[in-house]
């Protein structure tokens, strides 16, 4: 599908939204309270916080650290877990310190001329008009909606009080900015909804909340000025207006930010935070290689799904990727380095030879290391990961009272390979049910050790990578990959995860129907990333939340 719609927004990441806003005017009338309005909220991720600050105040603002320490994966996604999380004391404490840091940079003499839309007559005295203008302008982007008169007045009073206490207009504005940046209106994506007239049990998001859901889904950041304007004018509540915004956003290069965020979540990149591959056993897997492996995966996905615009399924048997010298050494393949790259990590496109055993996402160090033990590969972890993260299947926890000791008894000459040991383990009928689902997939990947390095022997025995997938026999990972690629579960999982990621919740029964129908169509027409995003973003149900328990006052 061609996406050649001209971008109306030519917003470079170098240009802050504030600059754009200076030439816009906004209706800042108080929001009309609606009796049936209900709010739900989703915690911003650390990356969404950073992206929002970058887009609102510009690239030059330094953000030193993450306030959020950990998340929760639910229904396969951290994004869904974000809807059940709040902020702990230590996280709010860190956010307040971050806010002080960012606000002091915004107010610095070198930036205030571009980031503050007005000048006080006297820098030592409070200027109410200028404070209100700054607060309403910045608040519009931080809160992703227009502020009520009451809110503008409250933050203006905050600035006035601080000016009085500390003797400077800008230090007063800084205090108000800190207040806005620790407010739940900024730290959470607050979604306002009213009951659907057509569908009982469903609530429809208001225009501001639509803009936020769309923007964090597609670009992983705060809504652009154009999107907020479409929300403010009401265009976003109508099909034509929504479609126009969706198409513009999907055609933008910034769609890559959203793609990277989604696949980082779906492929469990949070495991990188605690990845601990033993470098005494795997000396090539240094911290740099770990970082480059992560980038290799994201770069490969972005190139395939956006630049090359090929089918999602091709990611699994593609021979094309990008390598650095360190990754090439890990994989044992030659690459030519362009010297003019200077100090930057020299990424080069690479295509594996036709008969090469390593191909697709499953052959990359990211997947192979994230689902290994620190000192050993794990067919079980890898098989479980394919089932859970790529096929959206659930493997129940292992039962109690199980003796696993054969699994790692590498000293036993009868059980030299993981296959020998796991086969013995699967003879236990309690274990067989789940291990039959996981182990064959992982055993095909046993030719790659915990760091992703190729091997064909384990403890002096040849590694057997054969197995069965849905009754069909395969001899190695290449044949398994082709079978996986044909499995409709692979693509239905992507469709489902993308939708759930955008809504940060599990689908309602009617949405499941829509997902099934959309998946069937895409399988026939091609599972193209932009097409999938467009269909999801233009689905009216995407902008809903299920009716929750009655509100309490």
């Amino acid at each position: 599908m061609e996406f050649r719609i001209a971008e109306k927004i030519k917003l470079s990441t170098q240009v802050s939204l504030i600059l754009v806003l200076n030439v816009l005017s906004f209706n800042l009338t108080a929001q009309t309270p609606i009796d049936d309005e209900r709010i739900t909220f989703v915690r911003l991720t650390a990356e969404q916080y950073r992206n929002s600050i970058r887009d609102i105040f510009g690239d030059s603002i330094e953000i030193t650290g993450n306030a959020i320490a950990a998340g929760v994966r639910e229904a396969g996604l951290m994004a869904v877990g974000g809807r059940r999380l709040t902020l702990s004391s230590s996280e709010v404490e860190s956010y307040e310190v971050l806010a002080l840091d960012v606000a002091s940079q915004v107010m610095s003499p070198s930036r205030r001329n571009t980031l503050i839309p007005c000048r006080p007559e006297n820098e030592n005295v409070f200027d109410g008009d200028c404070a209100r203008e700054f607060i309403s302008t910045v608040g519009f982007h931080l809160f992703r909606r227009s502020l009520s008169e009451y809110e503008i007045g409250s933050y203006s009073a905050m600035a006035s009080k601080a000016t009085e206490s500390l003797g400077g207009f800008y230090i007063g504005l800084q205090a108000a900015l800190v207040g806005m940046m620790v407010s739940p209106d900024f730290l959470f994506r607050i979604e306002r909804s009213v009951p659907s007239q057509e569908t009982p049990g469903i609530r429809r998001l208001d225009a501001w909340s639509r803009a936020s859901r769309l923007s964090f889904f597609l670009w992983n950041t705060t809504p652009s000025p154009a999107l907020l304007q479409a929300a403010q004018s009401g265009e976003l509540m109508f099909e034509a207006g929504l479609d126009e915004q969706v198409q513009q956003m999907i055609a933008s290069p910034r769609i890559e930010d959203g793609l990277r965020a989604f696949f980082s979540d779906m492929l469990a990149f949070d495991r990188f935070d605690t990845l601990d591959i033993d470098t005494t056993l795997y000396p090539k897997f240094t911290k740099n290689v770990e970082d480059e492996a992560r980038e290799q995966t994201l770069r490969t996905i972005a190139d395939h799904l956006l630049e090359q615009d090929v089918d999602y399924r091709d990611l699994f048997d593609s021979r094309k990727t990008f390598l650095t010298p360190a990754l090439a050494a890990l994989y044992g393949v030659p690459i030519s380095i362009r010297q003019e790259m200077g100090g930057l990590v020299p990424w080069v496109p690479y295509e594996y030879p036709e008969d090469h055993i390593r191909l697709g996402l499953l052959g990359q160090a990211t997947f192979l290391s994230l689902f290994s033990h620190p000192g050993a590969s794990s067919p079980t972890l890898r098989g479980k990961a394919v089932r859970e993260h790529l096929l959206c299947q659930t493997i129940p926890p292992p039962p109690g009272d199980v003796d696993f000791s054969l699994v790692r008894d590498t000293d036993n000459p009868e059980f030299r390979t993981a296959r020998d040991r796991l086969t013995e383990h699967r003879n236990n009928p309690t274990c067989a049910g789940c291990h039959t689902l996981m182990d064959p997939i992982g055993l095909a990947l046993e030719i790659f050790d915990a760091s992703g390095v190729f091997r064909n022997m384990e403890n002096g025995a040849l590694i057997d990578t054969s197995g069965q997938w849905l009754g069909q026999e395969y001899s190695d990972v290449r044949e398994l990959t082709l079978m996986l690629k044909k499995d409709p579960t692979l693509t239905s999982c992507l469709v489902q995860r993308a939708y759930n990621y955008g809504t940060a919740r599990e689908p309602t029964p009617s949405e499941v129907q829509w997902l099934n129908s959309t998946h069937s169509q895409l399988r026939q027409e091609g599972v193209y990333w932009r097409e999938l995003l467009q269909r999801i973003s233009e689905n009216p149900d995407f902008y809903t939340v299920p009716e929750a328990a009655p509100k309490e006052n």
Partner: protein
Amino acid sequence: MINKNRKFTRRSLLRGAIQGSTVVMGLPILESFLNSNGTAFADGTELPPCFGSWFFGLGLTPGRWQPEVIGSNYELPEHVAALQPIKEKLNIFSGLQIFLDGKVNQNHISGAQGQMTGVVTRSAADYDESFDAVIDKQFGANARFRTLEVACDGNASSGWTARGRNGKTPCQISPLELYRRIYGDGFIDPNQADFAPNPEVMVRHSVLSAVTEQRQKLMNSVSSDDRSRLDEYFSSLRDVEQKLAFELERPAPLPACSIPSMDVEEIGTMVAQVQHTHKQFATLLSHALACGQTRIFHVTLGNAFSTLRLPGEPSAYHALTHEEPIDPELGYQPKCKVIGEQCMGFFVELLQALDSIQEGEGTLLDRSLVYAFTDHGEARLHSMKNLPVFTAGSAGGRLKTGLHISAEGDAATRVGFTIQKALGVVTNKWGVESNEVTTPFSEVLA
């Protein structure tokens, strides 16, 4: 890492002072001094008790940690011999279990969850309020940090505390970051002669107060599902507000307070790295208690599926418990036993850090109560029976020590309930279903 260096500038502070702005100072400080032996304030108020919880994963080698003698005068078995230096300030509980009541055993989670929250949930994603939060309410807001939570394995999700039902509290993983948090900006040495409230902190405090006032407006529109989440966020905001309020008051002098030094941190999962990180945290937390910075802490050695590793060993501790064969001659898993014993050694290092801080005739450990718990009785089999549980310290004489309590078949929640009773929580039961308990271990209550 949070950069705390860039804030309101000193220049702006001076400008405010020069201009004589109408800075409202905090309330007059209640001048309080310790009595002559350092165990109470001058007005007779005793130094308040502290509470700590300490998690070690994967239990201990079955049958090798319980003392033979019940009550006092017991001998420590070889497996827990490391505890000898603090034996007289310790209690050992054996025979305890967590009941699943027909729910799936969320391996390595349900046991610890049951002991900290009194509730075993159907899904591992659900987690209730932990009893340290109940104790926190009992203590009231009287320290700069409501609680401090740390993890020694580099995994912020390793902890077992929660303020409500909205997710577990994340842990700090960096000792240096904790050092900066406690002793960086805002720390006031309680023994320093001079004190002047910082006008910038006053402004920060008033900003947070104003944001907190938004609570009711939002609360009116949230569903009951989201209400507790929003409430917990505003509680967190109030904690920070309260922290700043503490920084605006002259603290009561505390002679035992001193600022520790810090060496280089090395975060990782090798046993030696975990020990080093744990030791740094033990030092920081004990000094934080002595300096009145907090009264509640949580330490976790590692996550539920312990990733601790021995040098040259490809399998982590969790994998070892399942995969290491039982030595037919020894009758146990040798490597697992070694790591379990090392964990006991770490526990002693924490307790000795507390015990090394003298407060009058007693020590910081004496006015503290540390609760040590684990996830399984026998990790190899994911057993929920015979969980090894310890308490240390007497919470200022509120708990007897030096006892081995055998409670064959009792719910392990009895220990948490006993601790709550010792620390003054007014309640007649704790836990749900079969883990609900109504009777504390009266033999340890003073």
